[in-house]
Every structure is written in structure tokens, then in C-alpha cells.
């Protein structure tokens, strides 16, 4: 099995991009990544794209073919192009497919991308589509919405571990602080605990500012084998681990509803592969689809005991200036969450940090970890990257 490296990254800005179509988004991100890697298009061997629901958002399926076509590969080099879907973990999954393809020797230079165009449908339709990440039969049909499911996780967690409303609010506050320093972030304004706790109630206890937004955006990375990486990049970043795990789709079938066992498993597998300890990790990009998800992620990835992440956040350990910065990109909350693109954006953020290109949000990091979740935890991918 060969070692794999990231040699190029590219992201669009994330936000309500009224003037960018689904295709425009992908082309922009892909072009940036190819330019960053100093490649020409003919050198790409394969393409993987993560996308949750183009069928319902823009009535387009067969995304693999569409993307290859509009990137200029389909009619010329006829590369294999595959759409990958795991709800909000589609991006992380696309990255994993690219990694395993190169590791196995099946291809040398592969693009892993993620794209989602969510603003071309009415908000009600968006919420209904996102509910497909949960169990349609046993959760959505009986009235649970996505915020509703994470609210149940929050209620269970807050009751058992005595997390306060104010502590929970510190997560989006921190992520907005970071987002304000990220040029691609959807939200560029800093907020306070008061902003969070006085915002509109969505699903008790989650309020508007506990929830990631509806976002258009795309991200792309180029990977190759570690042995060839320096042909293309002076700052290649090595993929130290790629792990994935599954769990029951419905929240009510979980062993423990405020522990994402798939996160626990994927993290164990990743640390084993990388032969690293938790203290070796310098920064995290975790899946904060809702504020409570970041709290659980920090714990379930093994960085502290269950019930401790609230205190860690409160004491500033996960802030940009803390000992373990979490979500320097602004996370899903402030950077935005174009569903299929998030997992790839997380890779882009870690790569930028490791290369020293993060400017106003730069942290001191040589090893970073990304954590991407599908639904309420039915699919989790964990990747570790290092220089």
C-alpha cells in the first residue's frame, strides 16, 4: 500500500451564491486546485465527487459524469469519475475513495471534490431534503427533523453531563471568531453568547445560532502518491490515516444517543493506522452541524473524557489561541455547510494550516485531524494529515 499526499487544494467562497450554478461552483474549486498543484488537466487519472442531494436541490443526477464533463475530462481523457454519497459525510468519503485508489496503485493522480448547491429551492424543501440524512421511515415520517434529532442529543447530553446553555453557546461564538478570519467563510461577523441564547428557537434547546446554515459551495483537492508528490508541490501534505465507520441510521437505535460510536471507532482506526497518540494532534476540523455535535466530537474522538468538552471550550483550550484549536476554518457554523463540500473543505483547511498559509487564523500545527459525519452519526470518516 503506497503512501498518499495532498498536492493541491481549492475552495470557492461559501454562502448564498445567487450568481453561481452547481456547475460554476465545481469548475471554480477544481480550477483552483489544479492551479495550486501546478498540474495540467490531462494528468488527472480519476475523479471522486461528494454530493448529498443534487437530485433534489437542482434535479440533476449522474454527477460523476457531469463534473468530469464540465471539468473538461470526459470528452478528452475519458477518466473514471464517481459520485459518492453519505449525506453530510459525502466529502470525507470522496476523499477516502481517492486515498484508497492511490494507495492501492490503481491510479496516480486523483481529484477528490465536494459540491452542493442548496439555495435554488425554497427553504422548506431544503429542510425536507436534508431529512433524508436521517431514517425517513422511522424518524422523518414520524415528525423528527434534523435539528429535532440533534436537539434530542443535546437534551440527553446536557442532562447527563451538566453542560449549561452558556457553555454550549461558546462553540458557535468561537467558530464565528474563526470564521471572521477566514476569507471564504459564509459568516464574517463575530458574535457573543447573548447573540446565541437570544436567537430564534429552532428545536429546544437549539437556537438559530446553534445551527449550521444553508450554503452553496465547492472544494477540491488533488492527491498523488507520496513518492511523486514533490514533482508537483514544495509543500506536500501526507495522509497519515484514512478511516471510516458506520452506525445505525436512526438515532433511537444507537447504543448511547449522545455518543457517536462511529466517531469512536473511526478515530481508533485512524490513530492505529497513523501510529500516533492524541497528544500528537495539533488541530482538529470537526463536524459541528449543530453546536452540540462539536462537544460530542471532541470527546468521541478521544481528546477528553465524556462530559469534559464543555469545560475545555470554556477554558479556551479549543480556541484559535488554545492548545488544541478546533475548527479554525469557522467550522460548519460560520464557514458554512454546503453538505457534500464540507468534508473536502476540512482537508483544505488542515492543508492550509500545515503549509503555514492560514494568515489571520494561522495556528502552530504539524499534524491535523478531520472529522466528517453523515446524518446523526451513521457514517463517520476521520483523516489525519501531517508534514
Amino acid at each position: 500500500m503506497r503512501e498518499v499526499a495532498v498536492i493541491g487544494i481549492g475552495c470557492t467562497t461559501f454562502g448564498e451564491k445567487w450568481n453561481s450554478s452547481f456547475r460554476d461552483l465545481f469548475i471554480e474549486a477544481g480550477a483552483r486546485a489544479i492551479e495550486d498543484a501546478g498540474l495540467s488537466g490531462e494528468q488527472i487519472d480519476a475523479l471522486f465527487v461528494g454530493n448529498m442531494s443534487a437530485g433534489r436541490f437542482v434535479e440533476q443526477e449522474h454527477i460523476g459524469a457531469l463534473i468530469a464533463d464540465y471539468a473538461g475530462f470526459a470528452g478528452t481523457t475519458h477518466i473514471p469519475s464517481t459520485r459518492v454519497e453519505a449525506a453530510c459525510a459525502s466529502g470525507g468519503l470522496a476523499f477516502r475513495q481517492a486515498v484508497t485508489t492511490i494507495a492501492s496503485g490503481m491510479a496516480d493522480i486523483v481529484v477528490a471534490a465536494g459540491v452542493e448547491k442548496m439555495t435554488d429551492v425554497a427553504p422548506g424543501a431544503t429542510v425536507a431534503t436534508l431529512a433524508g440524512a436521517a431514517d425517513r421511515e422511522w424518524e422523518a415520517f414520524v415528525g423528527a427533523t434534523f435539528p429535532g434529532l440533534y436537539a434530542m442529543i443535546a437534551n440527553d447530553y446536557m442532562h447527563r453531563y451538566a453542560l449549561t446553555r452558556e457553555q454550549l453557546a461558546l462553540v458557535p461564538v468561537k467558530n464565528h471568531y474563526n470564521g471572521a478570519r477566514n476569507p471564504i467563510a459564509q459568516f464574517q461577523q463575530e458574535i457573543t453568547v447573548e447573540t446565541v441564547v437570544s436567537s430564534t428557537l429552532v428545536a429546544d434547546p437549539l437556537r438559530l445560532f446553534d445551527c449550521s446554515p444553508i450554503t452553496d459551495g465547492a472544494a477540491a483537492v488533488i492527491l498523488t502518491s507520496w513518492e511523486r508528490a514533490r514533482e508537483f508541490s514544495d509543500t506536500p501534505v501526507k495522509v497519515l490515516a484514512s478511516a471510516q465507520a458506520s452506525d445505525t441510521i436512526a438515532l433511537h437505535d444507537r447504543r448511547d444517543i449522545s455518543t457517536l460510536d462511529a466517531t469512536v471507532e473511526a478515530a481508533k482506526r485512524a490513530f492505529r493506522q497513523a501510529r500516533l497518540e492524541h497528544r500528537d494532534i495539533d488541530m482538529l476540523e470537526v463536524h459541528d452541524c449543530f453546536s452540540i455535535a462539536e462537544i460530542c466530537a471532541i470527546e468521541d474522538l478521544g481528546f477528553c473524557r465524556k462530559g469534559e468538552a464543555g469545560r475545555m471550550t470554556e477554558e479556551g483550550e479549543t480556541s484559535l489561541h488554545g492548545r488544541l484549536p478546533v475548527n479554525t476554518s469557522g467550522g460548519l457554523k460560520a464557514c458554512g455547510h454546503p453538505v457534500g463540500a464540507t468534508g473536502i473543505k476540512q482537508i483544505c483547511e488542515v492543508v492550509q494550516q500545515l503549509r503555514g498559509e492560514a494568515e489571520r487564523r494561522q495556528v502552530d500545527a504539524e499534524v491535523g485531524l478531520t472529522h466528517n459525519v453523515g446524518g446523526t452519526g451513521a457514517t463517520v470518516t476521520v483523516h489525519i494529515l501531517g508534514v
Partner: protein
Amino acid sequence: MVGIVTYGVYIPRFRIRVEEIARVWGANAEDITGGLGVFEKSVPDIDEDTATIAVEAARNALQRRGIDPGAIGAVYVGSESHPYAVKPTACTVGEAIGATPKMTAADYEFACKAGTAGIQTCMGLVMSGIIKFGVAIGSDVAQGAPGDALEYTAAAGGAAFVIGGEEPIAEIHHTCSYTTDTPDFWRRSGEEYPRHGGRFTGEPGYFRHVLGAARMLMEETGLKAKDCTYAVFHQPNAKFPRRVAQMLGFTKEQIEPGLVVPRLGNTYSGSSMIGLAAVLDIAKPGDRIFVTSFGSGAGSDAFDIEVTDVIASGAFRRGAAPTVSELLADPIYLDYALYARHKGKIVMQ
């Protein structure tokens, strides 16, 4: 020279509060009043509609000025809720004010800016000498689908502006428009309620066009925000006009007198025109008024208006018809059941 010779407004007396609509749909009223800045909206009586409102507004305008109705050469009524798809409201108004038969007439549709488009048409007819006076009316009994966000603000009301070349109470120095093909809000023929693109109605809709027309007007005339006494914008809620005013450099003091939506709701084709009327109700000679309407579909008409001495002369009798403040005072509040009956939402066999 062309301008506003006289004007009149009509607002039905009934109201429903945002709290009452929120109560029925299980929504949080404070989120809505806080977010939109609207507290209550006007509701037509059972026997009122766009035509009756347009007639009342036109009659109120004529009460204030001694104009021979026979000299009115054009009537245009802009609305999204004309009683007939075919048979103009403008004819009914023309007959009711004694302007027929020597006049031209037509009904306009351009969402909330159909009335200001009528003003522009009348300006053209007056300036070319084809007519002496033209009446441009914006009137609506707006429909909001039950349970939809628009139900909180879709209101009823209208304003009539008589445009002419001799001794206007306010001169229109310049007008220009910004128009594109943008489907932010629409209603297909035969459909009861309009549909809209959610957040798409904001930046690509309202803001793009209002800013486009306003900036175009400022560039073409050299007018700056600080040169104006008042600014009036289309007001689907209180939030959008306040934000666009800030973006253009207008102050709270300049826009609040023309901001009628908090206690009235969105009167659609009447919206910016009733706002302008509210300003004219208090304006003094020399006041400069900046107006920009917006209609979905989409477009904005901008006007540079300056009040003349005539407004304070005996020729114009402001007190001969109700002001906007007077029409907003002393309302009769309805509960949702009576509101539904007034608005024809209860289907009877």
C-alpha cells in the same frame, strides 16, 4: 415642468395584529414583529376591493384641488389584485371621478411598482402635451397564503396621484428605472396566491433593483442623500427599507416619516405611494423627496421630487381629505375568523 398636482389615499379601517395571526399558526409573534418590524396590517371590509379603494383614493385627491375632472386625460391603475383579469379597474375609476369619456386608460401590473409605472406614463403624456392631467393609482387588496410568511404583511390600501404640468404642489425633476427579468415573486394566471423564492427575494430582488435605480438617479441628477429632506422606499416590511436607506446614506430622520408599514402592512402597489403621501402630508415648500419603488419580476422606479410653494397656498387644501395618519388612527381590530371572512378565505357553497 411636470409634477404632482394633488394626491389622495384610502386605507380600509379594519386591522389584524401580527400576534393574532401568529396565535392561529402557532408561531412566535415576537420573532415576527422583531424581525419584520410590522405589528398589524390593514384588512378590507367585506364590500371593499381594489376598485373601491382606487375610487376612494382618487376622490380624496380631487377633494383637495379644484380640478375639472373633464380635463383628466388618462387614468392608470396599478395592482396585483384587479377585480377582473379582463375589464380595467381604470375605467371604473374614470367613470366614478367624472373623467370619462375623453380619456385614455389601462390597468398595469408590475407587482408592487405598478402604480409608480403609471406615474411615469402620466409624466410622459403630460410632458408631450397630449394630456393636461393624468391620474396614476396604486391600489391592492393583497393576498397572503394562509400560514405563509407573507400573510403577516399582505395588506390593503391605495394612493392616487394626479400628474400635471401647471402649478404642481411638488415638481418631479427626474425619474429613471432599473428593470431586469428576475423571478423572485410571481403568481400564475388562475392561481389564488402568489409564490416566492424565499431569501432570493432579498439580495437578488429588492436590494439589487432598489439600489440600482437609486444609484442611477443619484448619478443622473447629481443628487446626494444629504441633499434630501425625505426618502421613501418600497416597504414590504420595515427591515428592507431601513437597510437600503442606510446603504445609500440616508438617516433614520429622513426615512421614518415615510415608513408606514409598521402599522399598515404592505399595501403592494400602494406601498411606496402611500409612503410618499405620508411625507407630502407634512412636507413644506422646498423639501426634496427621494422615492424608489420596487416591484417583483423585477424593477424599481426612482423619482427626484421637490415640493413647491403651491402646497402651502390656498389652491391646495390638504385638510379636505384624510391624511395617512388620520387613516391609520382609530382602527377596528378583527380576530382571525373575521379576517378570513373579510378576505374571502372561507369558501361558501
